């Protein structure tokens, strides 16, 4: 049911209340008023529900993968540094420098 259809139904209900005794009329008008309040309360429901359908990967998983990759890169750099040192040493021994 669209909002417009809902408004039309409410209007029909309001018209049907005409002619009722004052107590019954007031009680029912109040119920219709509450229905209108609920409709107002649903103003953001569609936007909220749409946003809630967004499914993102687990934050912790991403962080763990970033950390693992960073660690591996640093380890790789250290290996290259170590290689440089050893190579420099061998180079020195061979008199290449």
């Amino acid at each position, binding site marked *: 049911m669209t909002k417009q259809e809902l408004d039309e139904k409410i209007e029909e209900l309001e018209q049907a209340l005409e002619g009722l005794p*004052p*107590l019954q009329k*007031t*009680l029912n*008008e*109040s*119920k219709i*008023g*509450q229905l*209108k*309040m*609920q409709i*107002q*309360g*649903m*103003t*953001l*429901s569609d*936007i*909220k529900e749409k*946003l*809630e359908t*967004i499914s*993102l*990967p687990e*934050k912790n998983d*991403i*962080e763990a*993968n*970033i950390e693992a*990759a*960073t660690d*591996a*890169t640093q380890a*790789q*750099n250290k290996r*290259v*540094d170590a*290689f*440089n040192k050893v*190579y*420099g040493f061998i*180079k020195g021994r*061979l*008199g*290449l*420098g």
Partner: protein
Amino acid sequence: MNTKTIGGFLILLITLSACGTPYQVKKLSVKQNDYLDAAIEATAIQSEALVLASEKLVLQATERIDQLAKEDTERFSTLLADETLSAEEVSQALTQYAASMETANRNKIKLLEDLATIREQSQELQEYLKQLKQVHVALDAYIQSEKAGEAVVNDVLNLPGIEALVQQMNNRIPTLTNGLNQLNQTIESLGVTND
């Protein structure tokens, strides 16, 4: 040092110079940081606009609920002024009035809760993009990291980098193929001495 050793040395240099990440890939990787920054900024603006629009809607809906509650209060005030109502009818009216005020409050709270959810989801999306950038920063660190490999070249040959090495090799290889005398000269120019 014999020619075989020199040959091995040259193969090592050529291998080192061929190992690096292509310049275009490094450039794209750096550019990707900019592209992600642009996406983060665009999403931030879009989120801000969505939150602002939602806030306005909440304000309007809250005003309408307050107006409906006010109308109900007036309605029941008029009804309860009627002295012909029985005690039971008064009680029935008061119960219904209390329910109406409760509905008004509940729906105003619901609006604020939905707004909070929209804010949180928008924030989460922004955080996700920032994290995506962190992923790329980590990848970029590796893509750029053959600088460490270049350190081998710097350390061993005192050359400014792979590019200089390639250039120097290009200059020297033809010379090396031109005979022993020229080879010896090149060896000397490289700073390599025979033991």
